């Protein structure tokens, strides 16, 4: 942002008072900034003006005499004279309101919107007292479902074009539209085509009346009964939200417009995820092994309810026993990426500073090493999408996994001058908005990136033709490049991705946005919930001494990652495993290793909100607080800190994760010295090199959060932060002409715990299917829907096939975590890539 100059300021007279508008600013916004609110329905600051409702008409004289003008369409010009209170203005506003109301059903008493409805409010403020309309009102069938979650009541609709504009302009899913004309004009879907958009819930939020309602909230509360708090949704974007509850139950989540992140939008998966919070299968009490009579005995076969005292004592004695028998290395912690940043710190301190083990990993074989992620120079989302910049995508499809980032990218691609180069193995939901699709073959992306960076673009590399390589190089040339990097497929090791990162670091102007799975993964990596690292983006080697001074002890050597821990469990050297909201049985790419590892552990301690399959097999289960049930701080992919607020109490005796760590420490005869999230944060701010200067007060005060590290050098006396060093490149695996290379990716709706505990979403998870290019399918004699056998070096699975043009030749895509077939059976973590053969049955 450049500072406004005099030329950017336009003097405008509003109701006799001269005010300053910004050049190009719409009159409606300029007036609002200067304290004069003009009523409106169709205007929405994140969408193009349409001037449809005519509610914002005001009398304007722009030099050619006063006339009524829609202030939402009118950019301010110097010397404009505006009267928002003239008789002409008032009559026009009265008239528009009357027109809007003549056919309105006035069923406010049974309308979800009643009490927070702009039409109601503006009628009170500006409208006529009585109706002159004596004719029969317009009638339509009362609400019709337009998607799985959204209902449309056309009688209430005031045709403001917000939902329809959102669908086509913002989401790119033009599935709802106006139909018919005159007073019969209505919003509707196309016949037999539901409004199947991942973002449909946003239309409910922006509808200025109760025409669009969402199933999870319908008839659940009246707005005046709701209590609300602004918070952050714990997804990698750190979407800002408003959490609303009534009678200690979260009933609605609305997006909050934050310039830095989500612009007010949310994906349906996040918006409606609160359904899971009050699910009756939530863990509400600690569980330990016991007998069928419910007695807590050490060797019982069943999980039985117990008190916190007993459960924590059990957990502590298991840890003590392992410590005595096998040392700190016989203990491991998996998970923690969904905790608050404070809780992550407390758990890191418990594991590394009290127990003394470095076997800690918040990622389950599907991420990137923290030493790489935390070392990369980062960018902000807004700067990454500034006009004239370039974005490289080397991640899961953002539309499927990081919806609000997808909307930001989409906006930048449609409206702004940015170039997007896609290196991910398959095309994303951005479709034709991508400037260059250089879809690298799994295993070869390092070579592809290298070729683009070095300008060696005359021969095909990694499945990318010279034309695409050249186009990619051209699209990045002379632009500030931001690489959005994650793990597009767990069937491809992290090595090739890191090689690609290494290549891109050589670009002249480059920064990164690490986009990894799981809500607060950035916080987890920053807090050292990962082998070899300590809180504040520093390594054991660099920061060991500093933390030893603060904590008393710190592991000497780097520990094991999740795969290492599971293997150590199998060979008996790791005997106690703590699962922090982790479900390796369902989530670790090698399901077989996960199940052998968990079975071999003497004690598995699970801290979770639901009894996932891994939790059901644990020995001690500690129920944790979920979203909105505890306070803390969230860290997003940019390193942006924003507050998570508590709105309701956890169910039963469930407790906040940081408190569980503190109690466990206490039972281990140690005092972590932490009494609250605030005291945890104070310690983070005091110790962590990357968090110097980011105080609780500052984080809470900033509307858009606070990006770390802070620009000042408050942390100069602290250990150095990790820096990036390129590893030895991963060998390229030769192509097997008879096989397809596997891509195992993720979709928005899957068998995940939260989705499956939300009534409105559970059924939206489709069956697993294998997709491949139509020509590959034809060569194999596979038609749409055919059941095929897919065989890797490790196993085979059977599932239906689908030819799909978006999949490049020679590749096969199977989504993870879908019912019907488990793609993980095919994947061998020890190989760089997985090749599969497909045969019809």
């Amino acid at each position: 942002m450049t500072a406004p100059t005099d030329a950017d300021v336009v003097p405008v007279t509003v109701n006799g008072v001269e005010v300053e508008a910004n050049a190009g600013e719409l009159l409606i916004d300029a007036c609002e900034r200067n304290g004069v609110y003009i009523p409106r329905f169709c205007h929405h600051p994140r969408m193009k003006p349409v001037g449809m409702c005519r509610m914002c008409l005001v009398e304007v004289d722009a030099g050619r005499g006063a006339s009524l003008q829609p202030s939402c369409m009118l950019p301010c010009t110097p010397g404009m004279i505006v009267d928002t209170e003239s008789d002409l203005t008032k009559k026009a506003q009265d008239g528009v309101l009357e027109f809007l109301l003549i056919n309105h059903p006035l069923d406010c008493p049974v309308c979800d919107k009643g009490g927070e409805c702009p039409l109601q409010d503006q009628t009170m403020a500006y409208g006529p007292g009585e109706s002159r309309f004596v004719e029969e009102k317009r009638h339509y069938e009362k609400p019709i479902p337009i998607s799985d979650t959204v209902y449309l009541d056309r009688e209430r609709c005031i045709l403001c074009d917000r939902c329809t504009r959102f669908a086509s302009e913002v989401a790119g899913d033009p599935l709802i539209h106006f139909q018919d004309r005159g007073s019969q004009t209505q919003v509707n879907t196309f016949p037999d085509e539901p409004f199947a958009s991942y973002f449909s819930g946003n239309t409910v939020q922006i509808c200025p009346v109760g025409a669009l309602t969402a199933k999870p909230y319908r008839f659940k509360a009246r707005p005046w009964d709701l209590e609300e708090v602004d918070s952050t949704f714990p997804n990698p974007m750190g979407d800002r939200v408003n959490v609303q509850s009534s009678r200690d139950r979260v009933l609605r989540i609305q997006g909050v417009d934050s310039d830095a992140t989500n612009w007010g939008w949310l994906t349906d998966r996040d918006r409606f995820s609160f359904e899971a919070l009050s699910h009756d299968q939530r863990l509400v009490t600690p569980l330990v092994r016991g007998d069928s009579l419910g007695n807590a005995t050490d060797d019982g076969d069943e999980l039985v309810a117990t008190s916190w005292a007993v459960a924590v004592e059990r957990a502590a004695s298991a840890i003590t026993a392992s410590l005595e028998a096998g040392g700190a290395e016989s203990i491991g912690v998996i998970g923690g990426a969904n905790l608050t940043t404070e809780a992550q710190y407390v758990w890191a301190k418990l594991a590394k500073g009290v127990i003394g083990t470095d076997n800690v990993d918040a990622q389950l074989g599907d991420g990137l090493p923290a030493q790489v992620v935390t070392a990369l120079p980062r960018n902000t989302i807004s700067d990454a999408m500034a006009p004239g910049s370039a974005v490289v995508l080397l991640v899961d499809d953002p539309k499927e996994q990081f919806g609000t980032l997808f909307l930001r990218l989409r906006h930048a691609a449609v409206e702004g001058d940015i170039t997007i180069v896609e290196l991910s193995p398959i095309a994303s939901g951005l479709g034709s908005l991508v400037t260059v699709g250089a879809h690298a073959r799994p295993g070869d992306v390092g070579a592809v990136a290298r070729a683009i960076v070095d300008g060696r673009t005359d021969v095909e590399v990694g499945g990318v033709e010279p034309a695409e390589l050249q186009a990619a190089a051209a699209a990045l040339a002379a632009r500030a490049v931001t690489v959005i990097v994650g793990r597009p497929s767990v069937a491809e090791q992290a090595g090739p991705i890191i090689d690609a990162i290494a290549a891109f670091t050589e670009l002249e102007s480059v920064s990164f946005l690490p986009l990894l799975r799981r809500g607060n993964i950035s916080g987890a990596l920053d807090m050292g919930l990962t082998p070899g690292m300590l809180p504040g983006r520093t390594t054991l080697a660099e920061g060991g001494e500093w933390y030893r001074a603060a904590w008393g002890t710190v592991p000497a050597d780097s520990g094991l990652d999740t795969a290492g821990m599971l293997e150590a469990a199998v060979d008996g050297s790791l005997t106690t495993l703590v699962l922090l909201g982790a479900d390796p049985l369902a989530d670790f790419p090698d399901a077989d290793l996960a199940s052998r590892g968990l079975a071999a552990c003497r004690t598995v301690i699970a801290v979770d909100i639901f009894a996932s399959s891994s939790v059901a097999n644990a020995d001690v289960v500690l129920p944790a607080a979920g979203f909105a049930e505890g306070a803390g701080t969230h860290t997003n992919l940019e390193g942006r800190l924003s507050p998570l607020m508590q709105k309701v109490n956890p169910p039963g005796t469930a407790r906040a994760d940081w408190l569980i760590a503190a109690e466990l420490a206490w039972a281990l005869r140690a005092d972590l010295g932490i009494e609250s999230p605030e005291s945890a944060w104070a310690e983070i701010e005091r110790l962590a090199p990357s968090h110097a200067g980011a105080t609780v007060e500052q984080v809470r005060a900033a509307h858009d959060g606070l990006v770390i590290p802070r620009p000042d050098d408050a942390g100069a006396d602290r250990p150095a932060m990790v820096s990036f060093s390129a590893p030895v490149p991963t060998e390229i695996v030769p192509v097997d002409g008879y096989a397809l290379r596997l891509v195992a990716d993720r979709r928005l709706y899957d068998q995940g715990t939260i989705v499956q505990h939300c009534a409105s979403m559970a059924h939206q998870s489709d069956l697993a299917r294998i997709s491949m290019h139509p020509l590959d399918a034809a060569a194999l004699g596979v038609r749409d829907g055919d059941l095929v056998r897919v065989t890797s070096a490790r196993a085979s699975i059977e599932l239906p096939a689908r030819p799909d043009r978006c999949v490049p030749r020679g590749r096969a895509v199977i989504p993870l975590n879908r019912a019907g077939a488990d793609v993980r059976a095919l994947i061998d973590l020890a190989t760089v890539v997985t090749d599969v053969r497909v045969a019809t049955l």
Partner: protein
Amino acid sequence: MGVNSYLAHAPGYVDNEGPKIVTGRFVHEDSHTLARSLATGGYDGLKRALEQSPTSIHDIVRDATLLGRGGAGFPAGVKWGFCPPGVWPRYLVVNGDESEPGTYKDRLLMQRDPHQLIEGSLIACYALGLSQCFLYVRGEMALAQERIAIALNEAYDAGLVGTNILGTDLSVDIVLHWGAGAYIVGEETALIESLEGNRGMPRLKPPFFPAAIGLYGKPTIVNNVETLANLPWIINNGAAAYKAFGSETSPGTRMFAVSGHVKRPGVYEVEHGTTTFRELLYGDNYCQGIRAGHELKMFIPGGGSAPWFFPEQLDLPLEARPVGAAGSMLGSGAIVVMDETTDAVKACLRVVRFFARESCGKCTPCREGTSWEETILQRIHDGLGRPGDIDMLLDIADNISPGPYPTAADEANGLDAVPFPPKQTTICPLGPSSVAPITSAIRRFRHEFEAKITARELIPVEATGP
């Protein structure tokens, strides 16, 4: 010079006496064929144009003061000048969506002389450096569609359209587009939306006029069929010859479509500005008077959107300015004549109903207001009017078009004319158009409305005694 009668092969057209600039070829039964066109000087204008520079063609058109015939009467030469320099590509869109109530002149031009329209379009494209032209023809006009399609094929085959037209550097493609039958798509920005494949709803202008930002976001000239049909003659004969006809501010001729209670309704090519309404409606060369035994009650001078005129306005010339000052407009050149047998309430209801049904639904006052007006008028007409209905109608109308609405002077009531155009709370002029018949009818014939309201026909209830 014409023979002054209907032409059997051109239904609705009267071959009256007088200069023929756009309908000259209509006398030939095969006027729509390329052969007849070429035999009667067709494409000579294009050839002549190609011998001169594009700017000189633009200059000739500007000189000729060729006024747009689509409704607003804006000079074509001036509109053409609004194209921002250096922005390419640019497009020509031919507005053949003619659907203004009472208007049926473009249809005749398209059916009877499609080559003249093609030639005119090519001249415009040449003058402005446009490489693509879209001919948007109203959905219901099947014969016009067919004739234009055939003519285009002939012209392509003859090298008159397409690449290197007549062996020159000029290359223009003409795309024929069928509308789906919506009045609002005649409004130029709605037409552009529709061409782009969107729902035909007007865009708000300003900020952007099509000449600056139009089809696919590029500069776009939208001209009416008749406007373009004038170009071959103007290029062949020059601006001075054109200006020799008509008046100074309205040169040339203009097609008027007269319908209603006249002896000889039809389309006439009339000298602009010099002829009066009286001559057109009563003259032997034209409509030959009101049907026998009846007298004029009122007439709509410029299509359904125009405020009504009454016998007092008969001596106004057929010229945009005086008609505008007198409170109405020449609009699309459609004159609807009503004699004393016409029920003013019903006539008003009929026109309002048209606008209510054709509102695109985009802006609130038009979408809701026009159909509210219709239901009230229907109620009054059905004998169910209420005493306050008339004033309420006027007030609702005022919420669509605030302030005094254009209207003719009414000497009997001592009221002055309110000049055209009306103000609007809407996006496009369709909503305010619905107000024209209401204010016109109520101001002049309030007693007819009152009579219907007070003499409400009650539903007889049979009394059955105990």
